């Protein structure tokens, strides 16, 4: 595809079109259909790209989905488990900056139903996602589930939560500890969520979008200095990539 074809703004329609795309391989389609029949109501949405399949399941089907994948579909290799925070990041270098005095969680753009989530949809600010792979048939899928809106209080009761996969995959232990540490997502049924990387007394959840990165607070991002106003300047683009020979 030529770079001209991907002007900003055309991506939304493209994404809607690929919603009905064919699975990247017949095996991906089989897995998604098997999950749909096994989970019933718990199966919410799916999505295919050219090489990957996504399935979003209901939060209370999160462990069940992994169980089906592992025991019936042969997806026995645990790739990773992690989280996503869909809150809009402060646009560094532009007008919207982190305001140190602002009350956390009172951004007027926030709130249920306002989160712009990615492929396979989603309704809450936090999502857990994980990837399982079949090492014999060489297919894998990404599972997603909504985890809640947070923010987590000191009693951990209002925290985003998900079901733990540790009863199914022993290796889920570290992945879930990391996700809890970075996002504050609680995993029900995990044997002991404690810090993995950070010191035990660390406060806050660093990968949340409202956790300020002090270096960027002090010094604005220099990366945007001399590249303002790109769209439409093909002449500049030619000059920049002159060494790349013409096709």
């Amino acid at each position: 595809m030529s770079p001209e074809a991907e002007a900003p703004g055309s991506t939304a329609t493209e994404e809607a079109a690929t919603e009905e795309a064919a699975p990247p391989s017949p095996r991906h389609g089989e897995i998604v259909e098997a999950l749909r029949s096994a989970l019933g109501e718990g199966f919410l949405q799916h999505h295919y790209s050219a090489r990957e399949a996504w399935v979003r399941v209901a939060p209370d089907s999160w462990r069940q989905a992994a169980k089906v994948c592992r025991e019936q579909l042969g997806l026995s290799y645990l790739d990773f488990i992690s989280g996503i925070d869909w809150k809009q990041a402060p646009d560094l270098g532009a007008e919207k900056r982190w305001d140190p005095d602002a009350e956390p969680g009172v951004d007027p753009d926030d709130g249920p139903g306002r989160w712009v989530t990615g492929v396979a949809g989603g309704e809450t600010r936090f999502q857990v996602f994980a990837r399982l792979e079949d090492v014999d048939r060489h297919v894998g899928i990404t599972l997603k589930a909504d985890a809640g809106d947070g923010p987590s209080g000191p009693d951990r009761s209002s925290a985003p939560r998900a079901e733990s996969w540790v009863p199914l995959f022993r290796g889920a232990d570290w992945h879930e500890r990391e996700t809890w540490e970075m996002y504050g997502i609680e995993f029900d049924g995990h044997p002991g969520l404690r810090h993995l990387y950070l010191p035990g007394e660390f406060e806050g959840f660093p990968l949340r979008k409202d956790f300020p990165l002090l270096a960027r607070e002090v010094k604005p991002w220099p990366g945007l200095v001399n590249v303002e106003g790109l769209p439409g300047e093909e002449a500049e683009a030619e000059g920049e990539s002159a060494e790349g020979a013409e096709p």
Partner: protein
Amino acid sequence: MTVTEYQKAAYVAGQAADARINFEIEAEGMTLNMGPQHPATHGTLRVVVRLDGEQVVWADPIPGYMHRGYEKLCEVRDYAQVTTLINRIDWLGSFCNEVPFILAAEELMGIEAPPRAQYIRTVLFEMGRIANLTLFLGDMAAQIGALTPVFYAFRDREYVLNLIEAATGGRFHPNFDRIGGLKDDLPKGWIDETRLVMRRIRHFCDEIDDLIIGNRIFEDRCRGIGVIPRDIALEYGISGPNARASGIDWDLRRDEDSPLAWKHCDWKVWTHPDGDSFARYWVRQQEVREATRIVEQLLDGLPAGPIRAKTPARIRVPKGETWIHTENPLGEMGYYVISDGSPGGPFRCKIRTPSFSNVSIVPWLLRGVFVPDVITILASLYFILGDIDR
């Protein structure tokens, strides 16, 4: 003097109590902190092991002494800047870290690099693998007590690093891969030089055969130590040579449809059924040999043409999500990149590193082993601290 029944019972109870106390003292054991500054640690991984005599009762690895927060930093840099960061993940095979991220960005943008760039990428990828794994071949022997191989390894790895430097400008952190292609073409004379060095690396593997493989001391220390069964390996997400040493025939170079040039080569994926420390060593030795063959074949078939596709001056990655993983020297490395279409960097970049999963098995694997075997097992799992901590 007669002994009453009561006295007998009291005596027995006292003996039992003594025995219990003795048992408790015995089981009290000892806690050994291996690291972060223990001489036998690997990088700065700290492993707390609880010992009962010479045997490990439980072990708890504590990573994080080198946590740099790359997933957060990726969110405040643009795509071209991220490669500088991710060079520092697995610093022995740095170029291999850049490739999957660049492939992910290219897939989101719908760009594909020209064939020559894909070939050179694959050549440098495999040279990163050689630089990484030759060090392992020497280093594991050194941890077990054989010091000669580590000098051989550093000697021959130096030739590979010199070549990487000649091509990219950086010995350790090339930062050479660009969205749409490569920074530069190969320098003059590089290809002939590389062929010589590949022969030299194969010679190094033969030397390892003579020195280590079949060596009685080495085999006694490694055979049957730290056995990882296949299903446990899958549960923990063990990948790469560690998985292949447990009989899992899975190599993303062969099994994943990738734009890189492995599909044009004739080579073999080696597996070993044993799953012990020796198998992990042996599989890596074969992988170095195969990597030299891949490099030679790619240099033979190197196509002419441009090394960079036409890309806009300012990278703007459209909205989307993608997952790209490749077979890195340490195992499966993947980037889950979410772009929100803004001109900055990724909205979210989940970095899946092989060492993280490979080390998460340590509590399971160390239970019940003897103290010297802890060193063998940690050395044979072969992790890079930057790759665990990110």
